[in-house]
């Protein structure tokens, strides 16, 4: 039997998606369903003086209008930040209340003020226009760089500071800098991004008063986690009577991790009106109110000795957290960021300070990469700058500073189990034909184009995460994953996972693991997820964890099945369990020609007493049935790494940058399905190149989002990219039984510095992301006028 693991198995789920037979939240319609329209704040910051709902209530088709007062009266809890960060003065982070509907103030454009529930969507929208809110507008705090010096948005949160986080040894790092041979410095801005999943958020609250059951259909990456948050902290409904279903979900990228105000409101309001309530975001609502990503202002300094070895690293960051502290917003710029600033380099000491500030903008939270792209950007940009300043080749400078021995305890947090950084760098140099870059540069010059090359040798920490570790540093939950592998009597298998697939291809990848483990044909394996009524509690999908953590739980559950199967087989074959081997679906008694297939064992487990040769096929003390559950808690993070090399051509006349060549060599540990991994890399690269060259969210001074549609927010498209050259090197992870490290975020993490290093190499001057044509043109012009002046 050929191994399924490692094969390009076609995605089992594609047929339904490609033929329009997927079932998304907005495809679900319930009997007696009503429609919700949210009244949103047009101001970035204002006091609510009065909300007059009288006219709206009288409008055609209106069932009910709720405001923040109605929710407050019921003592419904607000939305929470799930990770407590402690500031350097030992005090806990400060977060404002985040009521699902605003109580007395609104704090960003799009903030939720009231909800109109009506018989039709049109009725709801028309009535929403009639909700008359009197605001007292206040000066909006928009720029994170100015937030600490501006007046307080929330009473008691001085300097608008959520926390002042530090990591590393300051004294030792200061010493490293004072004895440094050279110090390289950079000021960087990591631009704010809007996630833009293809499917906008949606939810349906459905309360049945006769049974007291509440169901929430929602576009979630982690339905169990949403239920926990809404139940334990929102107090919306007890967990055992609360079902959360995340059916087919069209992309998340982090933005669908969080339980949002709309989820809380439709779930709660459905109980009030005892009818289902449906809400589907319009694209403009997604722009305004989905959590955004990134938005850091960073100063980074690198200390070098005379041999161009790195001796220290210092990072100061202001992270924009937006108007409220969303679920993962506090861990993203701290523990997912600060430990990763070291990259793949052997750096003896480092110090990182992150000040997270509130502003009157949409909440900022985890977005594909979450903290790691920000960290990778700063280290890969300054490494590139350092190599240039000391006159060393980019590859050589990196090799000179790589971590070469594993496991490697970094000076900040992580103990990296495995890797081979020279291997992927060398492979990338070869594939990208690095040695002939100069010829390509001259060729571009003949067309009037400036060609540049950029490196990114990145490290990420995935497989999030060992529960004991994360809970010791403030996590509100453990980050294990669950699985249940259930044989049906007829020999096919249902696999329940706590991970959630919204594009990742779990139905295929997980089935490949189970198929190989149990020797069952892939078409006889079904993967079930996304419903709290099916399968055990799971933590969901983010941080490239589904395979490393969720897949490992599945593998462990399969091991338990085999263990039980051996006992049953031994009994049926009249031998000892320790004498039974399991291979490719057969239980074989050693030194005999006697065997039972796993299908026969499953059948016997479900029909003991009905089965042939012996009276009961089950040995004493073995229960009927064949299903096993596993809760897998990883022993460490996993550490994917890789080398990306980007070449760009810059048009000197327009300043337009085109990525003309892109090579990615990644080490994701063991790969289950190379085709799915390629897709993940492509998608990540599109987002990473998008961040570097195209995507930007722009709030004007009054806090209006001026890039709130595809007319103004540049989503990259296929014609913006060259044909990507993708390859792998493999060092299996030692932290999980599959040896997998995670691949979902790599492209978005690695690409921005690779692209920007290439642009800067081409134009020989610094430029910030996104490197739009006009920005680059101005930089080229400035450089020329400086040259002329000199």
């Amino acid at each position: 039997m050929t191994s399924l693991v490692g094969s390009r198995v076609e995605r089992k789920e594609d047929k339904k998606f490609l033929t329009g037979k997927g079932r998304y939240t907005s495809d679900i319609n319930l009997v007696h369903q009503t429609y919700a329209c949210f009244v949103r704040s047009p101001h970035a910051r204002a006091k609510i003086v009065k909300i007059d709902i009288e006219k709206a209530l009288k409008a055609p088709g209106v069932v009910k209008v709720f405001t923040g007062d109605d929710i407050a009266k019921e003592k419904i809890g607000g939305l929470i930040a799930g990770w407590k960060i402690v500031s350097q003065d030992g005090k806990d982070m400060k977060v404002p209340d985040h009521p699902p509907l605003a109580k007395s103030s609104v704090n960003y454009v799009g903030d939720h003020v009231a909800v109109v529930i009506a018989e039709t969507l049109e009725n709801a929208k028309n009535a929403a226009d009639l909700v008359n809110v009197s605001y007292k507008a206040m000066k909006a705090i928009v720029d994170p760089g100015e937030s600490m010096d501006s007046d307080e948005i929330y009473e008691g949160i001085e300097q608008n500071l959520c926390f002042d986080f530090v990591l590393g040894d300051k004294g030792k790092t200061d010493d490293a800098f004072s004895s440094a041979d050279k110090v390289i410095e950079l000021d960087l801005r990591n631009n704010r991004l809007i996630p833009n999943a293809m499917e906008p958020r949606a939810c349906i609250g459905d309360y049945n008063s006769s049974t007291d059951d509440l169901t929430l259909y929602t576009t979630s990456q982690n339905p169990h986690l949403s239920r926990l948050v809404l139940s334990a902290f929102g107090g919306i409904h007890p967990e055992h009577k609360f079902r959360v279903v995340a059916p087919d979900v069209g992309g998340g990228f982090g933005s669908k991790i969080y339980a949002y105000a709309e989820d809380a409101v439709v779930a709660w309001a459905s109980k009030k009106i005892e009818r289902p309530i449906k809400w589907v975001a319009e694209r403009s609502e997604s722009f305004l109110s989905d959590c955004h990503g990134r938005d850091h202002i960073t100063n980074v300094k690198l200390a070098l000795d005379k041999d161009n070895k790195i001796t220290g690293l210092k990072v100061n960051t202001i992270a924009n957290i937006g108007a409220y502290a969303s679920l993962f917003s506090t861990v993203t710029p701290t523990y997912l960021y600060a430990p990763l600033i070291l990259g793949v380099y052997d750096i003896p000491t480092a110090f990182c300070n992150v000040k997270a500030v509130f502003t009157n903008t949409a909440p900022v939270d985890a977005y594909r990469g979450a903290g790691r792209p920000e960290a990778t950007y700063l280290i890969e940009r300054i490494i590139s700058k350092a190599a240039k300043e000391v006159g060393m080749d980019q590859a050589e400078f990196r090799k000179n500073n790589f971590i070469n021995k594993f496991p490697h305890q970094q000076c900040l947090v992580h103990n990296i189990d495995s890797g081979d950084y020279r291997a992927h760098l060398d492979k990338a140099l070869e594939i990208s034909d690095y040695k002939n870059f100069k010829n390509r540069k001259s060729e571009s010059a003949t067309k009037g184009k400036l060609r540049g090359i950029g490196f990114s040798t990145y490290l990420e920490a995935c497989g999030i995460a060992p529960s004991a570790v994360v809970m010791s540093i403030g996590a509100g939950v453990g980050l294990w994953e669950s699985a249940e592998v259930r044989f049906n009597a007829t020999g096919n298998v249902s696999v329940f996972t706590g991970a959630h697939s919204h594009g990742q291809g779990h139905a295929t990848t997980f089935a490949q693991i189970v198929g190989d483990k149990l020797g069952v044909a892939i078409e006889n394996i079904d993967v079930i997820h996304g419903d709290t009524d099916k399968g055990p509690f799971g933590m969901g999908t983010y941080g490239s964890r589904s395979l490393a953590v969720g897949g490992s739980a599945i593998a462990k559950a399969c091991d338990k099945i085999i263990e039980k199967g051996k006992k049953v087989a031994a009994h049926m074959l009249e031998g000892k369990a320790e004498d039974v081997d399991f291979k490719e679906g057969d239980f074989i008694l050693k030194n005999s020609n006697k065997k039972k297939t796993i299908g026969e064992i499953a059948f016997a487990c479900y029909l003991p007493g009905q089965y042939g040769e012996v009276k009961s096929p089950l040995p004493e003390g073995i229960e009927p049935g064949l299903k096993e559950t596993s809760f897998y808690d990883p022993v460490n993070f996993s550490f994917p790494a890789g080398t990306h090399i980007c070449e760009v051509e810059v048009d000197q006349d327009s300043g337009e940058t085109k990525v003309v060549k892109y090579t990615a060599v990644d080490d994701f540990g063991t790969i289950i399905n190379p085709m799915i991994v390629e897709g993940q890399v492509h998608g990540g690269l599109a987002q990473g190149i998008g961040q570097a060259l195209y995507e930007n969210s722009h709030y004007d001074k009054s806090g209006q989002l001026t890039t709130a549609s595809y007319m103004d927010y540049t989503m990259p498209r296929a014609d913006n990219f060259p044909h990507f050259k993708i390859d792998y090197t493999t060092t299996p992870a030692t932290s999980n039984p599959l040896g997998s490290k995670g691949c979902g975020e790599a492209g978005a993490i690695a690409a921005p510095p690779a692209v920007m290093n290439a642009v800067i190499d081409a134009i020989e001057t610094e430029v910030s992301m996104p490197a739009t044509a006009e920005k680059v043109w101005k930089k080229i012009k400035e450089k020329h006028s400086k040259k002329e002046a000199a």
Partner: protein
Amino acid sequence: MKTFNFKSANNIKEASKLSSSRSTFLAGGMTLIPALKLRLAAYSEVINIKGIKKLSGIKASSKSVKIGSITKHVEVSNSKEVKKSIPSLAVLAEGIGDPQVRNRGTIGGSIANNDPAADYPSACMALNATIHTNIKKVTADKFFKGMFETNLKKGELIEAIEFQIPEKSAYAKYPNPASRYAIVGVYIAKFKTEVRVAITGAGNCVFRSKELETALSNNFSSSSIDNLNISSKDLNSDIHASAEYRAHMIEVMAKKAMENM
């Protein structure tokens, strides 16, 4: 979207009869439908004119190419007559929006809307087009009045656009990377008696560049653009491009158009 009555007209007379102060014509709907959905516009009647055969089609003579108002962009870009008589016009049509827009959007809809960054208005101005409506004929120079403003009266319907065939012409645009509308689009047309240059995307309405027309009339070559210093006065400045950049890109696109000529 607010509720409206949907009516279809079979001929121009019927369309005209159905129209009122609270109605709008629907051709390709590529701008109208999003505006309705976003509630930026609302009408009590939407009158479908897509079924009016007389408004569709392309006719070429030795002097002009006449294109019916509900002719789709893709029909213009694929038209043998257009490619032969005014190839630059086919190039322009091929670069509008995306395939979905080109398969639905119409030339009449585009110029009636007069988006300051739309492509077609520049072709109308540069190619000295005559706009035929159900009540008048008007030159492009007089048709485009300002931002989203034309000299069409309420209920007036464009029937066809008649482009003069130049000796040479070319269109070059620098698209907004988000919307792919023109940040700057430059249409240059050389006639026996004059050179006409129309600019879209850069100002609040399509306009003719006297600077470029004069320079190219004196010497119809790319080099005559080199020493021009296009003023950024009155040009748009927004999150996508400053007036200074737009002024610069007028030169760059004008040179590109000359190279493509």
